């Protein structure tokens, strides 16, 4: 048997084994159209279009907190969908393991992409694009895009620092990095970097996009940051730095002065007037600033920088009452309404039996209140939030909890049931009204007495914001003269609360002002009120404010928690105080 195996089987086994051939090369997959890095920075369009993706990371979204607006985490609004995670910001249960408004990943992703773009873009050989613009113009575009990239990096760092405080500063491109050695930069270092980026951006960005240089500042590029946007952002960054939350032991005055000066420089350019408030009348109201209309274009002079042009009716559908085919989610609070009442009281035009009679016109633009006639989605009804009313609590499962529905951003022309008519809009990041208010705030803090501010410019700035919407309807608002810095501060803050409501300012403003340190203010901010409207048998209507919820505050909430996983991965990145 042994000999048998030797003679035949052994050579046979060996020859069977020899049948193996190497197949690695036979397995090369077909080309699948996937782009590798080697395909990017050699192609003009692909490499310049990296910026389109970076813009995709800019702040946007009216309903980005699990369907809710960030306003629902402030005293501006209550979100009627009780299950939305936004409630965790209000009951204090958010934390490093339960992140709400978590933007850590999003903006660091944007920052990496900016760094990667800046690292690679100079080496790209610019070739003319077929059917489009020539080489010289593309080269100019490239240099402008680099400035835009810097602007966006500053914006991304601003979004991070206003939530987390100082964060790791990464300003060059690394493929990977030894993350165990990375630490958080100080708030001041971050500010320095943001300011430097804004300054470099401002140098190279055009003043407007209505010029004639195709591919550089032509009208197709409307919506990109301008020189003014870079400066306005710098002013905002410095204002945040000067604010009580972030000033630390530094003297805020030079920062306030810088803010005032930057704003003033934009406000006083008389010749071209790059930015100004839109004049609003009976047909055009504040909502039209964010959406195009026949009289107000999309990127109007009031918009300094806005993001993410989009089309749809989500805002209308999410916020108008169920009767209109909506789901009534964002409910403005009585707290915000009271800011309007206070104004009317000061002007002696407030009547408790008819509280909505003579208010600042912005109230009618922000609120859908009982008795208002609303047209949207091809339906016209009179809003009825009286107890038992067709739009009142109980009329549907997401009926208003406050007695009000949101009207800001809601366009009458929107239709979605049956047929459809969509609305175009952008998300405002910086607009001229904010710039005026930033100016007023900075100057008021810079001068111990508002009257010392040259040219009475604090009062003028506030009045400009306030009175443009009035159009002379209910008289002209005059900021009283001779008031103290503290009184002026209250006026500025209230004007800011009203003008910028629902635009994601209040949440951060009350934090940077450290309003929660003051027990009275804290109580006001945490006690969220609605209104109960009843009509008795004699047709007498009563308006009774009531408390909807008491929110929770802890001083750690001045800053957002950093994701816990990140803290575990990076031993040198420290958690914000109170969130450990």
């Amino acid at each position, binding site marked *: 048997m042994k000999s048998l195996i030797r003679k035949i089987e052994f050579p046979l086994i060996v020859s069977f084994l020899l049948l193996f051939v*190497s197949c*690695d090369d036979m397995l090369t997959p077909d080309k699948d159209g996937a782009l590798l890095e080697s395909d990017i920075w050699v192609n003009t369009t*692909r490499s310049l279009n990296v910026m389109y993706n970076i813009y995709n990371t800019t702040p946007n979204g009216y309903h980005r907190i699990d369907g809710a607006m960030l306003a629902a985490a402030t005293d501006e609004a209550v979100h009627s969908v009780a*299950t939305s995670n936004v409630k965790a910001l209000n009951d204090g*249960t958010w934390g490093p393991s339960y992140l709400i408004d978590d933007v850590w990943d999003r903006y660091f992703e944007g920052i990496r992409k900016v760094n990667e773009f800046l690292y690679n873009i100079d080496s790209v050989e610019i070739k003319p694009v077929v059917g489009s613009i020539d080489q010289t113009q593309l080269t100019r575009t490239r240099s402008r895009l680099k400035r835009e990239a810097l602007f966006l990096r500053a914006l991304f760092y601003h979004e991070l620092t206003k939530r987390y405080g100082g964060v790791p500063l990464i300003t060059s491109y690394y493929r990977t990095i030894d993350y165990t050695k990375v630490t958080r930069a100080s708030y001041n270092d971050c500010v320095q970097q943001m300011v430097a980026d804004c300054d470099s951006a401002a140098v190279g960005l055009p003043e407007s996009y209505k010029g004639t240089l195709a591919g550089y500042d032509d009208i*197709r590029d409307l*919506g*990109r940051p301008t020189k003014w946007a870079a400066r306005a952002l710098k002013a905002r960054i410095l204002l945040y730095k000067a604010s009580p939350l972030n000033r630390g032991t530094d003297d805020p005055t030079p920062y306030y002065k810088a803010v005032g000066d930057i704003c003033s420089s934009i406000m006083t350019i008389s010749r071209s007037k790059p930015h100004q408030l839109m004049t609003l009348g009976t047909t055009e109201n504040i909502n039209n600033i964010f959406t195009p209309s026949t009289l107000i274009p999309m990127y109007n002079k009031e918009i300094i920088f806005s993001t993410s042009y989009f089309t749809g009716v989500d805002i209308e559908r999410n916020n108008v009452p169920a*009767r209109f085919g909506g789901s009534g989610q964002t409910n403005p609070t009585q707290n915000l309404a009271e800011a309007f009442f206070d104004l009317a009281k000061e002007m002696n035009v407030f009547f408790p039996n008819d509280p909505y009679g003579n208010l600042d016109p912005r109230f009618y633009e922000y609120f859908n209140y009982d008795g208002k006639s609303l047209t949207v989605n091809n339906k016209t009804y009179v809003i009825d939030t009286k107890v038992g009313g067709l739009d009142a609590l109980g009329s549907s499962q997401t009926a208003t909890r406050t007695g009000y529905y949101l009207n800001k951003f809601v366009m009458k022309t929107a239709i979605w049931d049956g047929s459809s008519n969509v609305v175009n809009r952008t998300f405002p990041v910086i607009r001229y009204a904010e710039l005026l208010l930033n100016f007023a705030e900075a100057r008021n803090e810079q001068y111990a007495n508002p009257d010392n501010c040259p040219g009475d410019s604090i009062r003028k700035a506030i009045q400009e914001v306030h009175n443009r919407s009035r159009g002379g309807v209910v008289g002209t608002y005059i900021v009283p003269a001779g008031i103290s810095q503290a009184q002026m501060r209250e006026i500025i803050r209230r004007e800011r609360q009203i003008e910028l409501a629902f635009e994601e300012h209040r949440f951060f403003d009350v934090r940077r002002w450290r309003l929660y340190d003051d027990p009275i203010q804290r109580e006001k901010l945490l006690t969220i009120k609605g209104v109960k409207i009843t009509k008795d048998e004699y047709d007498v209507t009563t308006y009774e404010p009531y408390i909807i919820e008491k929110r929770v505050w802890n001083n750690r909430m001045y800053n957002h928690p950093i994701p*816990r996983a990140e803290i575990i991965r990076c031993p040198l990145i420290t958690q914000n105080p109170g969130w450990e």
Partner: protein
Amino acid sequence: MKNIKFISIILIGLFCIVDMFAAAPKTVQVAGKVLDEKGNPLSGITVSLQEKSIQAKTNAEGLFEINATNNDILIINEAGYFVVAEKVANSLTPVLKLFKMKYKEDKILNWGFGNTYERATSSSISQIDEATITSNSVTSLEQAMNGTLSGLYSTKNGGEKFGVRNFNFLIRGMATTANSAPIIIIDNMESALDMIDFNEIANVTVLKDASALAIYGMRGANGAILISTKHGSELTHGFEINVSSGVQSAVKIADRLNSAQYTTLYNEALVNDGSAAIYDPIKYDGTQSAYLFPDNDLKQKFISNVAPYQYYNLKAHGGNAIAQYFVSAAYLNQNGLFANNAGYDGNFQNSRLDKFNFRSNVDVNINKTLRCSISIGALIDQNSSANYGSDALTNNNSLLNYIVNQPANASPLLNENGSLGGTAQYKVNPVGVFFKTGVRSDERRMLNSKVSATQDLSFLLKGLSAEVFYGFETYNKQYLTISNQYAVFKQNTDNTYTQFGIDDTKLLRSSGLIGDFSKYTQWGGRLDYKKQWNNNTLKLLYMFNQSIESVAGDTPDYVYLGQSVRGEFGFQNKLFVDATVTNQGSNNYNKGKRMGWFYAAGASYIITENSQNALSYLKTRANYGLLGNDQTGGSRFAYRQTWSYGASGSGYAFGSPNAWAGGTFSNALGNAGATWEKSQKLNVGVDVEFFNKLSLSVDYFKEHRTDILVPASYFPSFMGIDMQPVNQGIVDNNGIELIANYKTTIGKLQVNVGGNMTYAVNKIIDLKELDFQYPWQFRKGNSIDTRFGYETNGIYATSADLTNAPVSSFGIPTIGDLNYVNQNAADDNVIDDRDKIALGNSLPRIIFGFNAGIKYGGFDLNAQLEGASKFSVLVIPSTFSTFTYSNRWNPALGQTNFPRVSIASDYNTQTSNFWQQDANFLSVSALELGYTIPTSIIQKIKLNQVRFYLKGNNLYTFSNIREGRDSEALSAGFSQYPLLKSFVAGLSVKF
């Protein structure tokens, strides 16, 4: 009635064919003798003629007589003996010798690497044959695999799927966090289980250990299910028709809350949340207008108790020395449980399935050395449902969910003026859904074909043969939607109506291909060498194959390329040794890393056999090897970093009017070393038989799986980019498998009982988890299927309990809430992720199956049971369910065992041990009672066999799960289409 007509036509047609065959020329009489290997006469042996239904039996002297023609061939195919075939032309008085098989030589295993006798293998075996398959299947082959195959975990994947795969299969548990599913191979080609008719199947085999799986290389680590379709044989022939019809009914459909209960609960939840009640439950007592205060029982109105089922199958098989054939055609029809019990007018749209299967397997001996096979299998099936959302199958779930969970007071079905009721919130009306939304219908088409040729190369070297094969399977799925819109109206208190949506009478048609289409091509070849001398055997095998799968999109084809060499050596028919080496590759990996080596070696030894002692057979076996699993999840071509350009949603728009432009961006960083999982498998087993009646198999298995793809969790977010997962996970799996069978005959009574049991437990060795703060946060050390959640300590019953109660990231507790245990109480007073602990395992540690069969005279009874034990399920009853209604926290009603209801808060619905239940179940998965009419009667009408049967599937489950849910399909009947039980009566006729 229609069906009976249909059957009659087929029957008449078949009689004609049978008559044709019956006409035979020139008869001679054959008188022969059958002897055993020692020359003793054998009695009771059946001798038959090839291709004919003529048979004879030998008498006590081993003599038989049979009328035949000169062209006929005598066949003896007796269990336990090698087959004998003898031409009549050779002799009219033949002496036929029967050779007895050695133990378990009669069981031929048709494996990927060829046929092997069971006695010669070192592997652990589970196999079911035709009898089990047809007796246990009602709508699909999967049902026959449930509990019958040792080592195979079969768990239902939700409610009924109407002909689409509804079982998840695992072999010996799990050993990876990635895809643990075995590959399914039908006739040596990877294929889908749900596209084949169960009557086409000859047997199903489960491969579990290294030696059996080594040729599958990087596809083999999860095990394999091999399915062989039937082929014709020169030994038997016939036609067979199977007709069955019956009803299917839901195992469980949840009860609904009526309007008063729903509104009461809703109000209570609102009050618990600190809001005001919004409903007036008293008004739903029937005294008010049913239009303003509706109370709809949708379940009663739109669900039927039973749905009809019918199945027809026609088979023909046979052959001679030159050609053999098997052909089969089947039609299956299943209706949905939806029904119009409320008498609304119009075209009610129920769900249904129509499935057609065809198969033809033909084998031809072209000459003495060349044999060709051509197999074709085809399927067309159509699922249709009311056009409610998406595809027909998803619609069935959505429709059931809607019927069970739509509030009873949502809106009247019809308003006072006859229009459809609805509100701003509830724009969907059930009458609208079933009568007006149109139809969705999905059709799957599959064609599977394979051709192979085997050439005997004995002229080169005795025992050498070669085979080549080529096969393809094409599959596509198309849809047709006929959609329509309808308006609903809210009747206001002042009798005005508010309209939502629009009424539209035009039925929009849209149709197209669903992304689900593919072409799978496989070709390959093999060289076989077999040699036998002095009871020794040597088998050598070389095989290569390439498979190419084309799927939708611009993805490159999936290509596998493999070569294997296997050697088997049998010494004195007692000691068997096998070794396999495979070199296999996939085009998913980086250049230079595409091919891998896999191997296995095994040995078995038969210590005793055919002994007259109590111990009649004893065999030990063991094998070990290295296999792979490339179904690791993650992205394909994970080794490279790709960039995207112009993808929708990645760009931005400037200008007014705006112009959108696509952005360019980089995707996750590549994992340069991306590879398949490696699995080291050891299997040790013993097969033993007592008194030739009771057989037992015991196996111990152990697996060590490495290179499991895990997230690069250590890579920080501030890098601003993701990292592809990395091959760094390690999991161990081991366990025990038992099979026992007992067979006996007492007079006319034949009894067989059997059972199988598998115990498997896996353990995570490493998953490269974050370096958590507390030891209990790690999955490491637990099993893959371990459920993590909160530990509870009852319910906060009093305000005193709430003193210092920890708050949580999902709410602040109040009275009636669960008391979650704060594991890190020393560090904080907050319940968050860090307090989650391992609660229990969701995969049964133990699975088992029992089968029993009795045969007495013409009657036969078969039963199959399956069960599982040592696992737990998580059942959180819905807020608006009857269970919650009668159990929720409400001390005023004396209900304090369950937490309070809430709409705003998900505090109580977190994963916690409060909602976890230890589970085990025993299910009567199949039961069949048959009666076969005595041959003496039916042969007069030229039939071979007539059998009536009653068959039941998924009849009853003994289980302890809350709300009567099924532990394998927790949502079935609650938010998904229910599981079905079937009652079927059938008739099988053989010609």
